[in-house]
């Protein structure tokens, strides 16, 4: 692999990194769609996609071509500017979130010491996009979906941040590469051993933040038909889709960096270990999606306010005491 830090100009470095990230996001979208459908199929004892290519491996590519080729329809009465800005606003910050992620020991786009905060800040922009999408569609289902999404994202942002504070207390850093370095290559040296509760809360919050089942309320299709993206067609829908998978990867990448030792592994540490952990967590997310029913809206908020926030506060308190002593 290329050692990104040897490239002299930071601007060139960022541009090359961005191209790499874009390629990764696109490829990851295809891989995730394929994985998702295969996991769903096998859990339901079906083969999943099977006809396009050997074992349906080209199916996501065919889907992508279909999405790109489809007509983009703006509904009557919709605000055309906001309506088409929404998918872009949803997708663009997802790219930015990839920049500070240390994929390998020397494979990091931007090594800044507030990497964690950068990711959390950019990923919060997604709410705005969904809100715009729901509002500008001139559709009642979209509006309801957007309303649900705002309440859900705001509620879950808090325990998400709170569950990360103990990590910062323990490592004393916001730089993701440094946090990785404080953990060792072996599983018992990972932070998940010290902070199991924080890991669980964080992971559940990732489900809620990325609108994945059982917390997929903004797009609950049996209630709101398709939620905020009811009216979107073609690549508008495709970008939302791609953004959702990108945020899933960002969430899983954060979880593996902060709790599971990032790119370090028992043998031959490197970016392969990082990808392995990320995709293992993604598979768990898919597995959960195809197992549970959807929670109700008030229960979802109850879970955040009554369980996760107090628990994560308690967790911070205990960690602070332990660190201090």
């Amino acid at each position, binding site marked *: 692999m290329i050692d990104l830090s040897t490239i002299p100009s930071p601007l060139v470095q960022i541009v090359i990194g961005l191209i790499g990230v874009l390629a990764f996001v696109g490829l990851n979208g295809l891989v995730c769609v394929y994985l998702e459908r295969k996991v769903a199929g096998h859990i339901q004892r079906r*083969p999943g996609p099977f006809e396009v290519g050997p074992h349906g491996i080209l199916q996501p590519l065919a889907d992508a071509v279909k999405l790109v080729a489809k007509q983009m329809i703006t509904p009557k009465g919709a605000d055309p500017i906001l309506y088409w800005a929404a998918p872009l606003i949803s997708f663009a910050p997802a790219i930015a979130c990839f920049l500070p992620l240390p994929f390998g020991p020397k494979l990091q786009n931007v090594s800044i010491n507030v990497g964690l905060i950068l990711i959390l800040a950019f990923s919060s922009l997604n709410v705005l996009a969904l809100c715009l999408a729901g509002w500008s569609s001139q559709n009642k289902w979209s509006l309801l979906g957007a309303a649900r999404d705002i309440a859900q994202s705001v509620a879950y942002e808090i325990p998400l941040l709170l569950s990360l504070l103990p990590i910062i207390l323990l490592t004393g850093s916001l730089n993701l590469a440094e946090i990785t370095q404080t953990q060792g290559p072996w599983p018992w040296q990972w932070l998940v051993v010290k902070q199991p509760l924080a890991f669980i809360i964080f992971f559940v919050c990732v489900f809620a933040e990325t609108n994945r089942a059982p917390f997929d309320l903004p797009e609950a299709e049996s209630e709101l038909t398709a939620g905020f993206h009811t009216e979107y067609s073609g690549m508008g829908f495709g970008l939302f889709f791609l953004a959702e998978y990108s945020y899933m990867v960002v969430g899983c990448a954060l979880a593996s960096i902060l709790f599971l030792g990032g790119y370090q592994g028992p043998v031959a540490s490197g970016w392969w270990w990082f990808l392995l952990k990320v995709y293992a967590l993604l598979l768990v997310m898919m*597995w959960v999606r195809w*197992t549970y029913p959807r929670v109700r809206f008030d229960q979802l908020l109850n879970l955040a306010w009554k369980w996760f926030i107090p628990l994560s506060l308690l967790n911070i308190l205990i960690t602070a005491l332990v660190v201090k002593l």
Partner: protein
Amino acid sequence: MIGSKLKETFDGVVSLLIGLKITFKNFLKPNLTVHYPRKTVKPEELTGYRGHIELVPKPENPFVPRCIGCGLCRDICPSGCIEVRSKRIAEEKEIHTPHFGLQDTPLDLTRKVAPPQKTKIEIVSFELNYNYCSLCGLCVQNCPAGSLRFSKDIYLASFSSRDFEFDLLKRLEKQAQARLKEEEEWTK
């Protein structure tokens, strides 16, 4: 109070884990899908299946249906999708009384016609409009000559409704020819 609440939560978490375990077990089990068209349903699993109706040939002549042209199937069909046309032809000995034989009458049971001497009925056409058929089986059950049965054609598909208007006599002929060919090959 708090104890019971905690226990409830614990049980809930356990129930979630059990759910995950079950789906994981199913994930590892083999697929059940029949990969049509590479694989099809086995013929023995089609016992009793009702496809569209077809004619049963006479045991001595596979080209001629058992049908006696009574028209009961046409009358009883709830959707009116069967059309039978038959004509009475005099047997060769009775060639002197031609005025009965040459009439090409669509069958009407209510009309009282004096029975001709020594005639036999030839089925001119037997058409089924499968588009309207609801596969109730009343025609098969009520056929006095046992001339109707259900086919086992389960993979019928087409872009045109015309393809489901069957001429059952032609079908019978094709089946008979296929059978003859099979028998010939077998004797060789």
